[in-house]
Structure formats: structure tokens, C-alpha cells
């Protein structure tokens, strides 16, 4: 029995085979292979923000780590939408693992101008349930595409002032190239597919920022008629 999952304030027991991994426990939890991607990401991060899905589990490790679970009780694991200040240093304090040789972080920051106009502040709005789903998909896709160990995405919504961080992405890996590539892919993909919008407030008015076109597979499916 590996007791490792504390979600929504509940601790649950799962019976898994010897040498099981987090991915195996995902199957135990969802009852089928290839369960919801969101669950995989959640489990991958829920222990301590540091455990990839392929990391071996054992009961003693789980017990030893249990104390860490309290700080990551968010059911969405390493994908979060927050309303308060993003404190990158605090969030990333326990992100690195001994096997990591690189950690790349990206912070999107509120700039004081846009297309020649002076910006006062931004209002970010999200379709939160869908945004969490889409961000979890990006995490899972990045873990599958790049040789990286773990990913974290935190996006802030609400009113943000100049200089504040709107989004934090962190990628940890054994080697730097994969971490750089994955981080760049994640931010570029996020701003095309994750349903979050920003309204720019200027001295002389406000406007919703022009988004980029949706990727072709969204666009075709949505506008083919």
C-alpha cells in the first residue's frame, strides 16, 4: 500500500505493485490505463512538486514524504490559477531534484507600454475549468515530447500592475537543451490554446489584447463550415 495522495484534504490509500511508479498509481486510481491526463499531472506533482510519473514508489518513501504533502494540496498539482502575487522563489523552493542538471524558468511580466501607449494595469480573465484542463494537457504533452523531468505552470488572474508576474513556467531536466526547448514550447502553446484573456488599461481607454490565431486543429474544427 502506498499512501501518497492527499487531494482536497483527503488522504487515500492505493494498493500498487512492488516497483510501482506514479504512472502505475494513476491507473490504480482511475481504474484504467491511460486515465485522464489531468489526473496524471496531478499525481505527478502532488507528492512534492518533484516527482515525475516514472519515479519509483515504495511505502517507506511515501511515509517519509507524507509531511511534504500538505504544501501541495491543490488538486491540480503543478498547474495552478491564482489571484495573489506569484512568488517564484517560494514556489520553486522545492522544485529541483538531485538528478536535475538544469532548471529553466519563464516569467511573463506586465510591461508599461503596448503599441506605443502607456499601460496602467492589466485585467486577466480565465475560463478557469477549461484553462486548467488545457494547461494540464500542455504539461503532459511536454513531459512526453521533451526529455524533462517535471513542469510547473502558475498563471495569475485579476488585476495586475506594471512589473508583476502574470505567468510562471518552470521546467527541470537532466540537461539544459531540453529544458529550454520545453519551456519555450510551453509558453508559446499556452498563449495559443489556454483560454485566458487580458484587457489592457491605458490612460485613454481599455482594450482586449489581440490574441494570436488558434492553432489550425482548433481553428479547422471550430470554423470549417
Amino acid at each position, binding site marked *: 500500500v502506498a499512501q501518497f495522495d492527499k487531494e482536497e484534504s483527503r488522504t487515500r490509500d492505493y494498493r500498487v505493485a512492488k516497483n510501482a511508479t506514479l504512472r502505475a498509481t494513476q491507473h490504480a486510481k482511475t481504474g484504467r490505463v491511460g486515465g485522464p491526463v489531468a489526473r496524471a499531472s496531478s499525481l505527478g506533482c502532488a507528492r512534492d512538486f518533484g516527482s515525475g510519473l516514472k519515479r519509483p514508489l515504495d511505502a517507506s518513501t511515501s511515509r517519509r514524504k507524507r509531511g511534504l504533502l500538505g504544501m501541495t494540496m491543490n488538486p491540480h498539482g503543478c498547474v495552478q490559477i491564482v489571484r495573489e502575487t506569484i512568488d517564484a522563489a517560494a514556489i520553486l523552493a522545492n522544485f529541483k531534484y538531485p538528478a536535475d542538471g538544469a532548471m529553466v524558468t519563464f516569467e511573463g511580466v506586465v510591461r508599461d507600454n503596448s503599441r506605443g501607449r502607456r499601460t496602467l494595469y492589466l485585467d486577466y480573465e480565465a475560463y478557469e475549468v477549461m484553462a486548467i484542463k488545457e494547461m494540464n494537457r500542455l504539461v503532459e504533452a511536454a513531459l512526453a515530447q521533451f526529455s524533462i523531468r517535471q513542469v510547473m505552470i502558475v498563471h495569475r488572474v485579476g488585476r495586475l500592475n506594471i512589473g508583476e508576474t*502574470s505567468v510562471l513556467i518552470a521546467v527541470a531536466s537532466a540537461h539544459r537543451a531540453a529544458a529550454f526547448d520545453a519551456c519555450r514550447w510551453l509558453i508559446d502553446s499556452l498563449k495559443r490554446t489556454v483560454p485566458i484573456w487580458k484587457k489592457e488599461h491605458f490612460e485613454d481607454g481599455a482594450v482586449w489584447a489581440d490574441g494570436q490565431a488558434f*492553432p489550425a486543429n482548433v481553428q479547422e474544427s471550430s470554423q470549417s463550415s
Partner: protein
Amino acid sequence: MQVRVLFFGVLRDMAGQSAEVLNLSEPATLNDVLRHYQTSIPAFHTLGRSLAMSINQEYAGPQAKLHPGDEVALLPPVSGGSRSSAFKSMRFPGGAV
């Protein structure tokens, strides 16, 4: 049947509300929802073909069938994060969208 329609970003401003319940005759598709609002809210045409739609928080095309109680969202192009990119390897494996 009834579906719940959500508006975000510039579409919410145009619609003057963030959500409403829409009555549709069955069978209905997302395209029926789109046409309804393109007719009732002429400003929607200014977005042209750039908006996307979702059913129950999943991107879906205009031919997607609707069921009673579905949550439909009209989504303008997203703008989270930073602007502009030329990164080529934009792929969405595993049915990401």
C-alpha cells in the same frame, strides 16, 4: 433543449453579459449557437473567423452535436502569457485540442 452559453473577453463585452441559457430546437449543433449570436449581436462579425468554441470545456467544431445541459463557451483568441513567437515545433499530440 437548453444549453448554458458562456462569453469571455471581448465577446462578453459585446454580449453585455457573461452567461445565459439558450433554448435550441433539437437536434442542434455548435453552429446553431454561433449563428444565433451572429444574428442577434452583429458585433460578433467583427471577430470574423477567429473565435473558437467549446462544449463542456473541450474545444469543438461547428458540427459538434449539443445535448441538453451542455456548457458552451464562445472563445476569442487567447492572449495569456507573452506576445509573438516564431517557434516552429508547435504540436499538440495526444488529442490536445
